[in-house]
């Protein structure tokens, strides 16, 4: 597996609270991605980054923000969690913006 970790692996939180998920890579790859996966929807891109401080929105970015202050870390923040953000969140890395390597995922439950 690629050197990619996600933390926390599981989280339960309450509606309205802020949540930050962390993706850490040891590969020094330029491209990093945040997806959410829900039954019937496959993988949906939230945000992605193509370098330090270079980020852009994906197809489901509302309610999420990201930051990348170092090559190895890509943070996903839910400013005020809602029940609709209950999901499995995957981080992915890529050296070329093509083939992607995924982290183990974070299961988030918003009550």
């Amino acid at each position: 597996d690629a050197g990619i970790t996600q933390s926390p692996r599981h989280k339960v939180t309450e509606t309205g609270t802020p949540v930050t998920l962390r993706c850490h890579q040891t590969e020094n790859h330029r491209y990093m991605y945040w997806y959410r996966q829900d039954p019937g929807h496959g993988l949906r891109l939230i945000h992605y980054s193509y370098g330090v401080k270079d980020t852009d929105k994906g197809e489901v970015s509302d309610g999420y923000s990201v930051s990348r202050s170092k090559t190895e870390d890509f943070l996903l923040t839910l400013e005020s969690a809602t029940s609709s953000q209950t999901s499995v969140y995957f981080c992915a890395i890529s050296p070329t913006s093509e083939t992607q390597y995924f982290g183990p995922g974070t299961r988030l439950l918003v009550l």
Partner: protein
Amino acid sequence: GQQVMQIPQYQHVQEGEDFTTYCNSSTTLSNIQWYKQRPGGHPVFLIQLVKSGEVKKQKRLTFQFGEAKKNSSLHITATQTTDVGTYFCAERDAGNNRKLIWGLGTSLAVNP
């Protein structure tokens, strides 16, 4: 917009039977990738196809890229319980080559 259609959505087979999933694009593809996700796991890259008509094999898995580069298939010969999971195809977003467009996946269940 650019779409990737994957069929079937689900497939249930007896162990030893063959399995095929198809991926069809609305555009001509530069390449296509296949991933596998085991239940409770994360997507894992299997292969990338680039050339028109390309056929690649990985043990019991055969991947094909259509001659017109608008479709692809993954065929598993003599399925085993270890093949259980969801198979995704993905193609480069023609409008933004930093992103992939993903199919919804085919979930394979194998009865022992």
